């Protein structure tokens, strides 16, 4: 890989991000079957093709920009946020939307206002809600184990072996289950005894969250990201969850549940930390992260969707110019100045 050099360019940062995602992918694959590998491949291929095409259309040099890996990071983040058992065109369309519209039509890497992966995800969630909820059953609870070839045949052809129904392979996510059961009036402690829940979050998915945390720690150690956004994101989410859990433990899930489920860890370390679409000043990063964390909690608890990382990130992306303008660090020797 010729593009790894000693000077930390976009390429080496993106490579580290991809590397940091690997443990989570391994755990994901272990608990939810090989479908994730298929969607990672699909997303990567689509992203590279779309990136090449758009770079050519924009008449900028293809190779240096293609090799910086930013398209691959977008593709992987999308594959990891979308249900892997969905039909092939879902991830392909999401990636196309992310790369072509959210990234290049907004001016390419560095100019895009919104996190491309989250735009792709949100567009698909709004347009195809049914397909976007085809989450595979965690391996420890599954009665049927789909082989790799059956997985391929399902993703590309939509056919399942024998008389198998799709319902037997998919399940509601922990956040989804919590939401529907709460609406039925069951208390949180009661719901948490259901088999899909693990020690603190969802079975299997809590370990993926742990792997994201490990990947995030690696990125922090490598100084690819700073602590501000993840800490503020997770801090705000945990603080809100703690406050409401202490207020009424029967209706509001515990803070560790919120940290370990859904897209919290992936969002905090890999999505909200996007250097292009996130805030850039240290104080701004804290405001940005806390805003995302707060909105994630609000959407999860009172909103219309079970998880809200994508929407929270997109909404805060819109506020970034304002946040950055108001949090300019004071130049040494100058007095306090209003922006």
């Amino acid at each position, binding site marked *: 890989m010729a593009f790894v050099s000693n000077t930390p360019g976009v390429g080496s940062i993106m490579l580290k991000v991809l590397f940091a995602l690997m443990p989570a992918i391994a755990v994901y694959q272990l608990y939810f079957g090989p479908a994730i590998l298929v969607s990672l491949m699909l997303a990567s291929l689509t992203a590279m093709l779309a990136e090449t095409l758009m770079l050519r259309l924009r008449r900028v040099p293809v190779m240096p920009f293609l090799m910086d890996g930013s398209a691959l990071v977008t593709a992987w983040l999308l594959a990891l946020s979308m249900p892997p058992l969905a039909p092939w065109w879902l991830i392909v*369309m999401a990636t196309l939307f992310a790369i072509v*519209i959210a990234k290049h039509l907004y001016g390419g890497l560095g100019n895009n206002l919104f996190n491309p992966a989250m735009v792709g995800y949100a567009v698909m969630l*709004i*347009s*195809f809600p049914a397909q976007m909820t085809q989450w595979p059953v965690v391996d420890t609870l599954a009665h049927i184990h789909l082989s790799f070839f059956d997985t391929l045949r399902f993703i590309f052809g939509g056919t399942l072996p024998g008389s198998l129904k799709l319902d037997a392979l998919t399940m509601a996510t922990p956040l989804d289950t919590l939401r529907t059961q709460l609406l039925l009036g069951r208390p949180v402690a009661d719901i948490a005894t259901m088999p899909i829940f693990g020690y603190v979050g969802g079975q299997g998915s809590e370990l993926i969250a742990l792997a994201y945390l490990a990947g995030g720690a690696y990125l922090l150690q490598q100084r690819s990201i700073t602590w501000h956004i993840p800490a503020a994101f997770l801090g705000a989410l945990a603080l809100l969850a703690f406050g409401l859990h202490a207020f009424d433990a029967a209706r509001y899930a515990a803070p560790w549940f919120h940290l370990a489920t859904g897209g919290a860890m992936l969002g905090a370390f890999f999505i909200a930390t996007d250097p292009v679409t996130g805030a850039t000043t240290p104080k701004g990063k804290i405001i940005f992260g806390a805003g995302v964390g707060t909105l994630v909690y609000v959407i999860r608890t009172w909103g219309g969707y079970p998880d809200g990382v994508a929407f929270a990130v997109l909404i805060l992306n819109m506020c970034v110019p304002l946040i950055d303008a108001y949090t300019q660090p004071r130049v040494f020797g100058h007095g306090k100045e209003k922006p």
Partner: protein
Amino acid sequence: MSQPSYGEVIGNGLWKQNTGLVQLLGMCPLLAISTSVVNAVSLGLATALVMAASNGAISLIRNLVPKEIRIAVFILIIAALVTAIQLALNAFVHPLYLVLGIFIPLITTNCIVLARTEAFASKNRFTISVVDGFMMGLGLTLVLAVLGGLRELVGKGTLLSGIDLVFGATSKTWVLHVLPDYKGFLLAVLPPGAFFGLGLLIAGKNWYEQRAARTKPAIPISLAPHA
């Protein structure tokens, strides 16, 4: 002030100063109602009729209205004409009237109508004002039709759905199912689809014009000072 020619007025309305793609006026109905070709064209034609009528009416009285209160007078005339159109739609194509709903009375507040009366009809003769109003409206209708077609095709995989609202139940067979078994890309029918679609149309027009400008032989090149 010299009178513009008919050719100029038609060219401006349909392409050069197109309300939808260049002036970007009257965006609210454009974005809200362009979910299908039938809706889009219906509202576009209603707007074009209002614009032709209001331009004509205001051109006739342009020398009688005191400058200070002209806007109020124009709006009153436009509102009266819109009410007439609204009643006509209600009487003759009632189902369509129900679909378009609030957007028919809202033609009154559509800034393109007032913009043309103020910028054109209050300064020009009757016939050319009518032509200007109608052509501007027709330009808007064309953009609406393309945008509506795009959104309907991508969003639902059909074209001309809802045509029976205009021509009665017999025309239901005219609906084109361009993409059978199409799941429907819901975003295209939702409001964001309108913004993306319009953005792409504007980009397309600009791209076309830039290309045309590049390929056209530059005549005044001999006049340019050479270094």
